[in-house]
């Protein structure tokens, strides 16, 4: 099940769509959630600068958290070196996800960029 956040007019932004496509193609996730958290930060409306992704994939099996994050960073290398400024990653194996791992709430903005 893929969940892509949509803005008020019901459209997912272009960057969010690219992120969805790349993560789907490269990691074949059983569950994928992409949340545009830019609204929580001091950036203009409709920005696509801060994202949270929840990725559940077999690709993460036997990989420590840092390795999992590097894998996701690598898939999204281009986005991270252009407009995407912050990426919160929650990476689980299907086993972990089924056991009910929680996704953390992202911290509030504190003004800087």
């Amino acid at each position, binding site marked *: 099940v893929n969940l892509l956040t949509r803005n008020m007019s019901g459209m997912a932004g272009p960057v969010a769509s690219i992120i969805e496509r790349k993560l789907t193609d490269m990691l074949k996730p059983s569950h994928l959630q992409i949340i545009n958290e830019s609204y929580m930060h001091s950036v203009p409306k409709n920005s696509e600068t801060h994202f949270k992704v929840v990725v559940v994939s077999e690709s993460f099996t036997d990989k420590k958290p*840092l390795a999992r994050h*590097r894998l996701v*960073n690598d898939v999204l290398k281009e986005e*991270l070196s252009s407009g995407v*400024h*912050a990426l*919160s990653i929650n990476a689980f194996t299907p086993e972990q996800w089924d056991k009910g791992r929680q996704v*953390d709430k992202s*911290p509030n903005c*504190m003004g800087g960029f």
Partner: protein
Amino acid sequence: IETQQPRYLSSEAPRDVQKEIGDLVAKNKVVIFMKGVPEAPQCGFSNAVVQILRMHAVTYDAHNVLVDEELRQGIKDFSSWPTIPQVYIEGEFIGGCDILLQMHQTGELIEELQKVGIKSALMDPEDEKK
């Protein structure tokens, strides 16, 4: 508005940021690169790292990337990690906010600190005997 330009005297070498960073992460057991300073973080993710370290009562060096653009880019190249904050323990890159939070929640952070001779304030007295 005054802009500061780097001034190279004939006897001065240009800045080697990678070497500088290598020296910085070796200077203390726990070193972080953040936005703002621990007393006044300028980013929620950086603040989360500061608060976690505070709970464990860890002393650490903190470097503010907002006042140093070369450091800000340099630290990303150094660790091949695209975002700030960044946490180093004994010169090794550990991760950012998400990873530190996860390690804090699972107790792994207490273990990692113990391995480098730092006693976390959150360590269970039982575990000290191990």
